[in-house]
């Protein structure tokens, strides 16, 4: 059965007009809970109540108010919809750019585009041309009372649309407050850490990653339902003064396990002083022990 579209309209590219349908490209499988009162599990509902009267207010009685600083302005939903402009059903591709020039921080939600009645042929022309040129179309349209900047490109053999963030909505490092990073790491530390990166380098295979937390939550639900006590989480100990030692121990551990297969990898050129025992995922305490061992050898 065909999926239900969430928006229908027309995509334009020059004077070419293509009737299209929009579908969500993602489908979250996160376990969702119901909102309840913690003390007795009573179900919660959200109610719209008049602040003075305490009356429950129906949706059709609602208007929207905005405080301009020079007084509150009340608008109806129709008046707010006026901001959607005169062409709310149009995705207008304004220009094309090189895809690799777009930093990932701009990408937001992904959609698939399907062809609507009368659009099949032009849809395929545009898809083939995008595939051939490797370019990404940039356009805008209104979705759910919001203007969306979008990137149009082929995704898995179909036209894909991904909404993009506006540049002014991104937070720059200068807007943040954090301790000054004046202490530069030593050359040797950088070299060792660089080696560790090399050892952990691999190919990007998204299918290799599965949501394992979901299973853990299911297990937790089972345990709690059976009346078992749940132990709280603990934090890992930070690496403070033993940075070098931790790096050394990491290199040694990584040289024995490959990140993807778990099989042994090529041995490092420099023979290890003393091999720490245990698997790659060692605890901080074990790292400290390894560090102490490394120190003894010096």
């Amino acid at each position, binding site marked *: 059965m065909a999926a239900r579209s969430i928006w229908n309209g027309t995509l334009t590219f020059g004077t070419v007009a293509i009737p299209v349908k929009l579908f969500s490209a993602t489908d979250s499988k996160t376990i969702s*809970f119901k909102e309840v009162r913690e003390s007795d599990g009573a179900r919660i*509902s959200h109610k719209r109540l*008049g602040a003075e009267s305490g009356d429950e207010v129906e949706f059709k009685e609602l208007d929207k108010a905005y405080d301009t600083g020079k007084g509150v302005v009340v608008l109806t939903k129709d008046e707010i919809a006026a901001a959607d402009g005169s062409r709310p059903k149009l995705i207008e591709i304004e220009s094309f750019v090189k895809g690799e020039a777009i930093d*990932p921080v701009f990408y937001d939600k992904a959609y698939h585009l399907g062809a609507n009645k009368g659009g099949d042929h032009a849809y*395929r022309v545009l898809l083939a041309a995008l595939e051939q040129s490797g370019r990404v179309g940039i356009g805008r349209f209104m979705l759910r009372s919001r203007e969306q*900047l979008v990137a149009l490109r082929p995704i898995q053999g179909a036209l894909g649309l991904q909404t993009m963030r506006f540049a002014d909505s991104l937070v720059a490092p200068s807007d943040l407050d954090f301790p000054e990073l004046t202490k530069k790491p030593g050359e040797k530390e950088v070299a060792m850490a660089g080696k560790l990166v090399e050892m952990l380098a691999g190919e990007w295979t*998204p299918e290799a990653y599965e949501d394992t937390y979901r299973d853990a939550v299911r297990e937790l639900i089972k345990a709690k339902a059976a009346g078992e006590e749940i132990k*709280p989480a603990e934090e890992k100990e930070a690496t403070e003064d033993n940075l070098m030692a931790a790096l050394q121990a990491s290199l040694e551990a990584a040289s024995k396990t490959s990140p993807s297969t778990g099989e042994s990898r090529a041995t490092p050129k420099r023979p290890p002083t003393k091999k720490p025992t245990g698997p790659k995922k060692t605890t901080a305490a074990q790292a400290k022990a390894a560090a102490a061992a490394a120190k003894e050898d010096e």
Partner: protein
Amino acid sequence: MPRPMWTGSLSFGLVNVPVQVVGATRDLDVRFHQVRRAKEEGGTPERIEMKRVAEDGKEVPWSKIGKGWELEDGSMLVLTQKDLDAAAPAKTKTIDIESFVPLDDIDPIMFDHPYWLLPAGEGEGAARAYSLLLEVMKEAGQVGIGRIVMRAKEQLVALREQDGLLSLTTMKFAEDLRDPMDTGAIPEGDASKPSQREIDDAVSLIEEMTEDWEPTQYEDRHRERLLKLIEQKRKEGTVDLPELEDEPKPQKAPADLMAALEESLAKARGAKKSAKS
């Protein structure tokens, strides 16, 4: 500065760096509050409050809200955030960098939400370990792939150096992506097959319309229009409702499509020429 969404440690091999995660986006939406329309003209609208109310009609504050899971016998199991944190304790408090991959290999469809990763804690050692990671990530030119559990949800993350800080972008799992073919709306078959000439013309049009990517040139025009009409309503008491334009008609016949492509191409070339002269 935005408040941290998550604190814990970033672990790279056996190096653990205390970090906090802060949002890298700000909400610039024009925010309204809901009011109840006044019964008579000129009356004062009543402000609306959203309240969480239990089945017995009592209001429940946010701090007393739990996560409910309906068991097979119909009873409600109540979990707290603490319980959920304990589901996978190591994951809840640690981002483990599992591997490094080239950024360009990741399809943008995977990316979800951007964050900044800041050093946390007082120690000089922590800042030094952070600086080390920053330096090495910059040199490697690759992104670290790991996982984070935030708001009771596990997400893949891509970590990299960006503007002198570590950034973290959450990513979707491959299993959460839908196949476009499942929409049943992707055209195929000989009837709609494009000709090489059409494709070539479309490619030329794309090339004519190609510009540099300059993200700052795009502003949220909807926000501007919204603020303008609020101002109009304040001053004049009314809002101009726009007349909706008809949607452009699709070029149904292949000859019409070809004509539209050539017309657009001529226009784009003309525009470029006049811009140059």
